[in-house]
């Protein structure tokens, strides 16, 4: 792994809806503003797995998929559509993703053993 400091495009509500359809995750907190607020959230939030994959995609883009053997994260705060995203990673595999300046995800990535196709 290498040191990374990458601004990423903000997620759109359309991406949340596309992701819900792709993985069949229709929890209303991802598309129903009223339900999300009643659940104590600031509004609709990105699916945790989508946030995970956005961070993974940045790592894959920077290092190649064959360099990613495992990726473990803790989700620290919800990501709302439109929030500015920023990914940082260190050479020893520590990864963080901020959304709107707040830490949204922290984790570790490790290299794959051998070379994957």
């Amino acid at each position, binding site marked *: 792994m290498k040191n990374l400091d990458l601004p990423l*495009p903000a*997620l759109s509500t359309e*991406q949340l809806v*596309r*992701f819900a*359809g*792709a*993985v*069949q*995750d*229709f*929890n*209303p*907190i991802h598309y129903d503003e009223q*339900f999300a*607020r*009643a*659940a*104590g959230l600031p509004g609709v939030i990105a*699916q*945790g*797995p*989508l946030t*995970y*994959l*956005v961070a*993974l*995609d940045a790592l*894959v*883009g920077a290092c190649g*998929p064959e360099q*990613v*053997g*495992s*990726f*473990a*994260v*803790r*989700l620290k705060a919800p990501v709302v559509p439109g929030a500015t995203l920023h990914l940082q990673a260190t050479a020893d595999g520590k990864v963080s993703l901020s959304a709107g300046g707040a830490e949204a995800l922290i984790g570790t990535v490790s290299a*794959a053993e051998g070379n*994957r*196709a």
Partner: protein
Amino acid sequence: MKRDRIGQPLLKASLVAHQVKLDELSHALGDTPTAQQTARLGLFFGPTVVGYRNFVDAIGLDLERALLGGHETRWVRPFVPDEQVQAEMKMVDYQERSGMEIGVFETHFTTPVGEPIQVQRTTFIERAPRAPGASQ
């Protein structure tokens, strides 16, 4: 959350890593230059492989109080477009902490003959119910 489900297979599914689903996930990722490669690593999210409602019902999750706390994937290889995949999910840990319930679920993805493709480990947190009369 139903703590008595620890160790039991909760969900089993036979899936196909359809190219059209890879395309859908790639679109959801914003069609970045590597979105197709990333989609092959993360096409399925274990708890929702047979629909999120089945997962919610299987463990008695309260959606208004549930949050994804963490997720880990260990890859043997990416999914191959249009290959057949078997998925099996179990609850592997359950804890109560500060009024919250924390459940850990492991999903193994294999080929139809049992060769490993990837393992996902997913942590869900169910927050304590609000006190009656508490503000939103």
